[in-house]
């Protein structure tokens, strides 16, 4: 018992040390943007600021506190936000960034719905890290502020013709959310245990059957788990193209059983004979780190490198994408309609799109997230800075990642597949 207590005290101590290390000023943040910025030419000002300028928004934001709700499941991301980003925002704009980590942003979506129910004109959330069905839910309930993203000065670096940042799971963003980063789905394996990973879905199915108990995936609706299930379903049902339109129950009933059949076919060969699945991506990462399973998967292609760097994954960890192509999407920042500090929230969203923040975020020593800005649209000095970033030993080259991209499905399809998985795979 005392030993256990000592263990907890040690963990707590480490946490404190890690937090304070994260708070120390980052060298990058001293390279302050000195020139006052202006909104992109012709961009419509956001609601409530029709007659103002960007400079006035920045003035209003000074001294405000931004309550930022975000998924808090990964330590390096939390450290980047509470360390680098919070320090830079304080120094450059006098804004206090307060991170509220949540296990699933759906909790914050529920909070906003609750506030709206209670008729609170002034809420408690200023900024949300969001994408996909949660964005769709908030848009459906009309609880987001906007359009604002087009007015952010740094949105000039975003390629507005790129569907992966102007659409969010098939729903146009309509500038109610501002892109923050991008993701490409990769499979992660330990090359010391699996010398040559299967690079096709059929190959993986064969591998799983030949190696009972060494594979599993996080249970949908976990984001990472959904990504894996989607790719298998695309493969089993003859491709994603048929699902890109409006939701069609008849088509769903006709095609998806093939996918459930495939998932049920491998189930007896999964970790714990498929009797249970990891509750979350974090649980899957732990299973992989502890050698209980041989594969992990991630939306962030440099996550494996960052984890090697942090000593959490073995040095021999590598990644691959399926020959069939890989999923790609973007993640965004959105401002609730009842946010008390909209001006400061917009300044934070703008800062997060700045070349310095995007470059720092892309560094695997910090986070290793793919940039939402189009690097070729940046000033030359920043293009060079991006080119100099170390790629990480387990990260695939960009050409390999982007060789064949398959889209994610619109929210109604995705939700139907999540529910179908619960019904036809988990509970069967």
């Amino acid at each position: 018992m005392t030993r256990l207590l000592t263990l907890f005290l040690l963990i707590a101590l480490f946490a404190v040390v890690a937090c304070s290390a994260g708070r120390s000023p980052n060298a990058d943040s001293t390279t302050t943007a000195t020139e006052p910025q202006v909104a992109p030419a012709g961009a419509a000002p956001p609601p409530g600021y029709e007659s103002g300028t960007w400079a006035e928004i920045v003035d209003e934001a000074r001294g405000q506190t931004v309550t930022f709700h975000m998924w808090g499941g990964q330590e390096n991301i939390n450290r980047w936000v509470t360390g680098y980003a919070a320090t830079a925002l304080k120094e450059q704009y006098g804004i206090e960034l307060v991170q509220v980590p949540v296990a699933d942003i759906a909790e914050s979506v529920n909070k906003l719905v609750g506030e709206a129910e209670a008729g609170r004109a002034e809420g408690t959330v200023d900024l949300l890290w969001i994408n996909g069905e949660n964005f769709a839910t908030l848009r459906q309930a009309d609880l987001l502020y906007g359009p604002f993203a087009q007015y952010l000065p740094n949105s000039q670096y975003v390629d507005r013709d790129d569907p992966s940042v102007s659409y969010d799971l098939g729903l146009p963003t309509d500038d109610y959310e501002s892109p923050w980063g991008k993701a490409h789905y990769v499979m992660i394996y330990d090359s010391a245990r699996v010398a040559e990973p299967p690079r096709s879905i059929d190959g993986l199915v064969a591998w799983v059957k030949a190696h009972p108990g060494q594979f599993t995936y996080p249970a949908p609706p976990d984001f990472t788990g959904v990504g894996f299930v989607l790719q298998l379903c695309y493969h089993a049902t003859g491709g994603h193209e048929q699902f890109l339109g409006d939701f069609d129950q008849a088509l769903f009933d006709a095609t998806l059983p093939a996918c459930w059949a495939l998932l049920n076919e491998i189930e007896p060969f999964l970790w714990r004979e498929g009797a249970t699945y990891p509750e979350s991506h974090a649980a899957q990462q732990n299973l992989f780190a502890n050698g209980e399973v041989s594969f992990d998967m991630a939306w962030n292609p440099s996550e494996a490198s960052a984890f090697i760097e942090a000593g959490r994954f073995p040095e021999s960890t590598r990644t691959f994408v399926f020959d069939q192509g890989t999923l790609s999407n973007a993640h965004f920042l959105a401002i609730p309609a009842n946010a008390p500090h909209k001006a400061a929230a917009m300044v934070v969203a703008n800062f997060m799109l700045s070349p310095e923040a995007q470059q720092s975020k892309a560094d695997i020593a910090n986070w290793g997230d793919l940039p939402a800005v189009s690097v070729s649209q940046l000033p030359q000095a920043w293009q060079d800075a991006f080119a100099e970033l170390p790629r990480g030993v387990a990260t695939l080259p960009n050409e390999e990642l982007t060789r064949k991209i398959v889209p994610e499905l619109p929210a109604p399809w995705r939700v139907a597949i999540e529910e179908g998985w619960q019904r036809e795979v988990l509970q069967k």
Partner: protein
Amino acid sequence: MLAPALSVVLLLFGSGLLLAVLQSFGYLPFIGRTTLTLDAYRDLLGSRAFYQSLGISLWVAGVSTLLATLLGLAVALLLRRPFSGRRRALFLFQLNLPIPHLVGGVGILLLLGQSGLLARAAYAVGLIAQPADFPALIYDRFAIGIIAEYLWKETVFMALVLLGALRTIGDEWEQAAATLGASAWQRFRHVLLPLLRPSLRAASILIFAFSFGAFEIPYLLGQRFPSALPVVAYRRYTDVDLAARAEAMAIAVMLSLVSLVLIVIYGRWTTRAAV
């Protein structure tokens, strides 16, 4: 003095409960639903998954309560008599009381997982060749990890309640029985146990109510399906489909009803004990 305190409790707790009941009847104005229906209850009570989850919840609460009661009773009887080092033993025994359940859950995970401390020890001495050879004590069908966590904490609670009761009972009764020729077992069975019964009942009802309605440990250590009811309620509550809230609230209302019944029973037993 009582009125302000009670009104705060009623306002906060009562209005929350009222909202939950309303939403469980499908009153969800934020997505434009204002008609009251019993759909959520009908869907739940008509689904097999609900009964499987109810079964898990009852199993966890039942086994945890039974074992914690037996173990707590044994410990209380052991620690009751003076012996050298008794104070220290008592202190060590109570040490985990202020530790939150969540921390206990993580501890169990690190200890009992298939790559946990015990598994590593078993590997080191050559008992197992790979993590999967270690018995599944976490995320398992029988909820062993969950029950272990509750035992770790609730045994102490039970023992402390019983130790308090034993102190008030004193040992005159037992001495009287001994004078009349009662054996140790007879003294326990016919004297001590009836005297302890009110405390045993009260404490075990509290343990049952807690382990039946608690969320974090089944969420952390439970298998994905079927999950304990509070975990199902959480998943329904955070579902992207806002309409699923009605079901979340229906589960919450049913959990509250069970707790309410238990509180009534608890109240009756404790008042009778006081008389």
